[in-house]
């Protein structure tokens, strides 16, 4: 997936919505660069419900713990358990192999609040 084609949350998660209303969610390259030295990631269970704006997991670096926030509403239908043991490679392909969860959308309402790539780049430039 190309970063230009994705939607972004203020909290640095990216979203790709497929034709089947399944949203794939990951963490942006910018956020990974800010986090650095990841040591642990906790994923939700398949079948759990994700709620837009609420934490679905957490990621821990040597320095600190950060929540992962869901940008969408729906049921979690898949979680990428392979990356948990390969956190150091997350940054190699954050928009592909580094996806974190897939959510079957129960509503598309939350998508309206997300940013396109240009708006997200602007936010990153302000934070950097």
């Amino acid at each position, binding site marked *: 997936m190309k970063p230009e084609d994705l939607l972004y949350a203020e909290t640095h998660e990216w979203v790709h919505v497929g034709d089947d209303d399944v949203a794939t969610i990951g963490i942006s390259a910018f956020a990974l660069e800010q986090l*650095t*030295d990841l*040591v*642990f990631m*906790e994923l939700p269970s398949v079948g759990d419900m994700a709620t837009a704006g609420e934490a679905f997991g957490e990621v*821990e*670096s*040597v*320095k600190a*713990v950060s929540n992962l926030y869901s940008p969408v509403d729906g049921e979690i239908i898949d979680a990428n358990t392979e990356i948990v043991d390969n956190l150091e490679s997350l940054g190699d392909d954050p928009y592909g192999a580094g996806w974190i969860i897939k959510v079957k959308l129960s509503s598309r309402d939350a998508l309206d609040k997300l940013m396109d790539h240009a708006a997200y780049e602007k936010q990153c430039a302000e934070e950097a």
Partner: protein
Amino acid sequence: MTTEQLAQTPLHQWHVANGGRMVDFAGWSMPVQYTSIVDEHNATRTAIGMFDVSHMGRFVFTGPDAGAFIDSLTTRRVNNVGVGKIRYSLVCREDGGILDDILVYHLADSEGKEFYGMVVNASNREKIADWINQQLGDQDIGFVDKTLESGMIAVQGPKALEIVGPLCGTDPSTLKYYTGAITTVCGFDGCCVSRTGYTGEDGCEIICDADSAAKIWDEIFRAGQSVGAKAAGLGARDTLRLEAAMPLYGHELGEEINPVQAGLNFAINLKDREFIGRQAIVGFKADESQQVRVGLKLDGRRAAREGCKIQSGGNVIGEITSGTSSPTLQCPISMGYVEPGFSAPGTQVQIDNRGKLADATIVELPFYQRS
């Protein structure tokens, strides 16, 4: 506090130009990391890590009674120790609560005139300066805060002395551990070079004029490239000191904690001397009911952080004061305080880690000791 109001060290421009991620630390703009905490940590364990520690408070005391005066404020004997000696010590209140942990230097300048130096935590600089002024009264002792007119650089790691040595008038590898001298560094006169640090590695610290700090840093950094020296930020400084089980003020130490429960008996000298807090400390030495500082290793990969409660059989028996994922040991490590009955190495406890219980074991400190 906005960035513009933060104090800047003489090395601020270097940090910004070299990718330092600047944060507010005790009112100073300081680099938390440049590239990766783990890389900077490992460089310090295997080669050299260079730390800007100019934010720490630096005081100078002069006059014939300076040593006796400082001695009256600190838990450890510092008066009449030999010239060149440096002592880790504690400044306590009358009730034994720790106001700061400090280094006291007994040095002689290039003309042989003796004086005492003190390095205090950045976060406690004003508090300790006020405390000193209060105790000083009208005694005829010179007391100057030199923090803003000087810089301080820590060069730490197994290759530190071989790189810094040739750049100094007095080679720090000829100095014993915890001693120092006034000498030239990179051609600048009047620098203090000491074999001290806060990482658990051998190495040295240099105190110099603010004007020469950037040049000295640059010269050591360039010389160190041949052995893999890296600039290291506060993030690596924290993981390094934690592995070495060195307490950090505001975490393992504070005004509600006394030196005995903190396990700092080596820094308490009671015999034939008086100092503020002595009577309280005598009492704490006999009190076996107080919580004590311990080290913990956790199962799993999740690190416990400051504030997590320590439990046994569902009862809270203590609290974590610092924690991280140890880059050297590759497991989560913590320090904290527990009820004395749970402090023996090997004791199994649980840590309430953000709502989930993790198993942990009390272990001997330090977690890491250089070979």
